């Protein structure tokens, strides 16, 4: 206990150092916990939403692009005798008064709902049911959703649905059985099935039929009978598969975020290491005396680890609190990205999962202990002598520096070797990346020492004696400066790596959009999450415009397959528009001819990667006449979706599916036509009949890039947090140096250095740290960028990207390193400059 008391009071006497150490752990844990909570909240939201929407359904019958005919439902109930079956029409609606607000619309038959969903009003229940059935445009919402929209039962609500505007009336509230179901239904708008069919323009059609089949042989037998009456275009899927599929879609995105958050934790670990390393160094004589008095190595080792555990515990507790607050903000960004890129999900609140908190605790404590292992070992190895000169220690550490660099080199090579192994594992790729980062960080002190040696000559010439002193001081205190520099290198290199990756991605996207978007104007009735068809009359009017010389008609749909929904893009393929497709191999014109004249498709790179397909393979798709094989004529570059998609010519599509729907058109203008006037003409041609969005070519490119930029906001936030932690680390190291050098600085003051000169000396040292970190971060940053682009992005999303080593990114990062170090040095420099020679020279 006495030993522990001595240890605790050592930290208490240096409250700022203790605070920074705790803060370092706290920030690292906060970032990890925040990302984990945001990710798990989003995942939980779409899982429970999928589950709540499917209710107690065990299976779902889904159709092809044209949906399911109502006749199928009649057959199931009457012919097969499946009493527990419920028809559903589902889609999305936007709320024009609240831009960005999307409701999930579900049209149901209340009489069939009882076996499935308890939140739907039952027959004989409250009055909402009769209103739902008899009053047109009647809808139900959760009371929380209604409150959010500012409406009460009896109020009207305007919606953009099925390509048009509709006014609905709130008749009552959904009544979920528990809090979890309530969270899942937060953006659900329930209506009668006939109303939904009318609004979506799907009269006589269903989106799906929910089934509740018994378990065991009886259920299997019934399933077989169900399958026997289905048309060829329909299939039965497990009701729970939707949630899994949604999770799988966003897995790579969430994993990348997690990796970035772990990087912040790694930087925090440097801070811990630095703190405890300094603490052991400062107590070296004391530790030697304790060893002489009979304290064993094990006891000293456990003492230092115990200190780290306490710091870790305090930092973790604080980190979790910060993480909860940060998580709410990040949740908004994560949800927005999922909505932009993948599917509609509404997540209002952060779901505080014990698992996420547990991970944060384990990581915070684990990282603190891991970071303190080496200093604890060093403390344990303290020789039981009466005095151990600091110069001996420093020179001892300097001797260790090449050895540590050697270990770093081995780690670098190991990381590189892992990348050379064939495979697709993303976690393994990230592990190898961390090996690279850790290995390089271990080499930084050696590189810093070498660079300082080079700088000594020039700094002396330019800045005189003070300049030479600054470089020598840093070199002489490599035990502290080396670690702080390494932390800043790691943080800044992450900025470079991610910055280059994002820049390369953006450049790739810009070039791709320029090539791919060939039409001058695009028209769609799409509203968040759904693509209602363009009315045929609208398509005719647009095609007849004098400004328009060529029209390509497109259809976006999802086909169910054993691996989940496949995104199919159907489009006319005149040579001019087809020129926008870039193929890895094969002659584009031959590919186009194959698409027009044979059952063939082309697949995007991500699709080919995920499904391990290549040109020449066959793809089975469920058509109106059952499953058919389509030859893969080519693999094309595509950045519209990381899930990947299949593209088919309209000509072939209409041969195999009874569907003539058009949900988007591309208009090619005559050579003399003015683009702006043409857009105006398009709007006039559409008139007020249907809500459409008209994009000019440039407008669509800008919208796409804006979505891209939004996606990486969260990445930028995480990068800045990593820099903040490194900044705290530098501040920590400089404060420690101030304590260590009090006597030395007092001697300088006594000798005649003015406070201003002393300030300049210390600032010069911190500037040198920033300079070194900035320079050393560049190679590591470029290496990280290459790994992210060539390996991780490829394995996560299947994309191949151009590499753009933008000098601006490197320059900015260098300046960031310099600025962070100089800023961190301001306060310590000010304090050191105020050192009183008399006070510091007094004998203790």
């Amino acid at each position, binding site marked *: 206990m006495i030993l522990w008391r*001595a*240890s*605790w009071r050592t930290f208490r006497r240096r409250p700022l150092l203790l605070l920074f150490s705790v803060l370092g752990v706290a920030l690292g844990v906060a970032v990890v916990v925040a990302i984990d909570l945001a990710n798990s909240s989003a995942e939980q939201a779409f899982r429970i939403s999928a589950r709540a929407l499917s209710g107690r359904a065990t299976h779902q019958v889904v159709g092809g692009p044209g949906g399911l005919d109502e006749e199928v439902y009649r057959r199931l109930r009457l012919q097969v005798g499946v009493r527990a079956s419920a028809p559903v029409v589902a889609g999305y609606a936007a709320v024009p008064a609240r831009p960005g607000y999307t409701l999930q619309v579900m049209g149901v038959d209340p009489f069939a709902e009882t076996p499935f969903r308890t939140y739907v009003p039952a027959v004989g229940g409250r009055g909402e049911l009769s209103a739902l059935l008899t009053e047109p445009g009647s809808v139900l919402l959760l009371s929380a959703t209604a409150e959010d929209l500012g409406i009460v039962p009896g109020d009207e609500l305007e919606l953009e649905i099925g390509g048009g505007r509709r006014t609905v009336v709130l008749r009552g509230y959904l009544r979920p059985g528990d809090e979890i179901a309530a969270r899942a239904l937060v953006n659900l708008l329930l209506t009668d099935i006939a109303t939904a069919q009318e609004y979506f323009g799907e009269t006589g059609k269903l989106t799906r039929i929910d089934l509740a089949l018994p378990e065991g042989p009886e259920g299997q037998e019934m399933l077989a009978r169900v399958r026997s009456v289905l048309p060829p275009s329909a299939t039965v899927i497990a009701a729970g598969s939707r949630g899994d599929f949604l999770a799988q879609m966003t897995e790579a995105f969430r994993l990348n975020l997690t990796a970035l958050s772990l990087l912040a934790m790694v930087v925090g670990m440097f801070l811990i290491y630095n703190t405890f390393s300094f603490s052991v160094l400062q107590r070296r004589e*004391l530790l030697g005396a304790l060893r002489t*008095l*009979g*304290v064993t190595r*094990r006891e000293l080792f456990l003492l230092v680890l115990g200190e780290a555990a306490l710091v870790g515990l305090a930092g973790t507790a604080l980190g979790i609190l910060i993480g909860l607050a940060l998580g709410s903000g990040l949740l908004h960004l994560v949800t927005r990205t999922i909505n932009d890129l993948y599917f509609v999900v509404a997540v209002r609140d952060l779901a505080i999962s014990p698992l996420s908190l547990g991970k944060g605790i384990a990581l915070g404590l684990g990282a603190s202990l891991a970071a303190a292992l080496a200093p604890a070992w060093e403390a344990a190895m303290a020789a039981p*002598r009466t005095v151990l000169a600091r110069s001996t220690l420093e020179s001892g550490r300097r001797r260790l520096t090449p050895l540590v660099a050697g270990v770093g080199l081995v780690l670098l090579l190991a990381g590189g070797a892992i990348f050379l192994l064939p495979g697709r594992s993303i976690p393994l790729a990230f592990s190898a990346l961390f090996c690279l980062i850790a290995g390089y960080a271990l080499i930084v002190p050696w590189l810093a020492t070498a660079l300082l040696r080079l700088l000594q000559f020039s700094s002396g010439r330019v800045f005189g004696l003070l300049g030479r002193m600054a470089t020598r001081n840093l070199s002489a205190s490599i035990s502290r400066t080396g670690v702080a520099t390494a932390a800043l290198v790691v943080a800044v290199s992450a900025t470079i790596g991610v910055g280059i990756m994002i820049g390369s991605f953006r450049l790739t996207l810009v070039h791709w959009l320029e090539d791919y978007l060939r039409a001058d104007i695009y028209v769609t009735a799409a509203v968040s999450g759904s693509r209602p068809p363009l009315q045929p009359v609208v398509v005719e009017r647009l095609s007849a415009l004098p400004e328009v010389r060529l029209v390509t008609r497109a259809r976006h749909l999802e086909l169910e397959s054993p691996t989940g929904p496949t995104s199919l893009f159907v489009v006319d393929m005149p040579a001019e528009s087809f020129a926008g497709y870039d193929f890895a191999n094969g002659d584009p014109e031959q590919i186009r001819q194959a698409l027009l004249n044979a059952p063939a498709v082309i697949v995007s790179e991500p699709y080919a990667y995920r499904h391990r397909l290549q040109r020449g393979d066959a793809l089975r798709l469920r058509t109106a006449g059952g499953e058919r094989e389509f030859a893969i004529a080519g693999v094309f570059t595509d950045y519209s979706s990381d899930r990947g998609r299949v593209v088919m010519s309209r000509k072939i599509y209409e041969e195999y599916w009874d569907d003539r729907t058009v949900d988007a058109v591309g208009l090619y203008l005559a050579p003399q036509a003015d683009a702006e006037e043409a857009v105006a003409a398009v709007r006039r041609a559409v008139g007020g009949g249907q809500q459409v969005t008209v994009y000019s070519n440039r407008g669509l490119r800008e919208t796409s890039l804006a979505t891209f930029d939004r996606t990486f906001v969260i990445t930028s936030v995480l990068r800045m947090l990593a820099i903040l932690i490194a900044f705290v680390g530098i501040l920590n190291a400089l404060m420690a140096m101030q304590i260590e050098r009090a006597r030395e600085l007092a001697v300088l003051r006594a000798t005649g250095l003015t406070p201003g000169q002393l300030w300049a000396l210390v600032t010069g040292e911190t500037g040198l740290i920033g300079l070194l970190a900035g320079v050393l971060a560049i190679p590591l940053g470029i290496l990280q960028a290459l790994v992210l682009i060539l390996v991780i992005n490829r394995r996560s999303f299947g994309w191949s990207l151009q590499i753009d080593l933008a000098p601006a990114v490197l320059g900015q990062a260098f300046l960031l390193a310099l600025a962070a170090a100089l800023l961190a040095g301001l306060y310590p420099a000010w304090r050191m400059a105020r050192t009183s020679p008399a006070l510091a020279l007094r004998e203790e």
Partner: protein
Amino acid sequence: MPQRNAIRQPATPLIRLRGLSKIYPEGERQRIVFQNLDADFGRGEMVALIGRSGSGKSTLLNLISGIDLPTGGKVEIGGAVLTGLSERERTLFRRRHIGFIFQFFNLIPTLTVLENLLLPLELNGKIGAEERRRAADLLARVGLADRPDSYPDRLSGGEQQRLACARALVHRPQLILADEPTGNLDAETGALVMALLDDLVRQAGVTLLLVTHSRELAGRADRVLTVGDGRLSAAEAW
């Protein structure tokens, strides 16, 4: 065969050094600190070790205490062969049987006076009423009974060294090793501290090996030995 260094042997030795050698490699050469040293130190004996700087006085203390291992030979204290023990065993032995007094005091700055005194007792097991009483007595003996809650940086040099002396004795060791105990004190304070130490050690019947440059201190010892040229020899004119 090199002649062994033999010096006057006490009747009941606590410490036996047999064939003790310590050789350090220095580049291509070897620096011989001791070679085939034999020596005995008696129970309750006070021995002063004098010699030039770098002669090996502190090295000898390190070898005797088990902090360092000799290149050859044997160190035996109270029947225990230190040179045959592991590092951990030597540490535990040191904690139980040896007390240290350093030139620069080496008190724990973040422990109070009383806590510094109790530290060796805690290292050796739980602190009971008996141990606390003993600590209080010692504190009174060294004149710090009124300062139990003060921190070392509030004490004068003399007070710190008196506390260090008490710390070295509190756990009733068999042996005390003092390396220049008055080296950091003025003459008057040093004399006072040495007188106190002498008194405490004699009363406790503890063996004291004392490294010093001070003739006055050496004069208090039962024996004065000179360390030098790899040997231990009786000092002239003592």
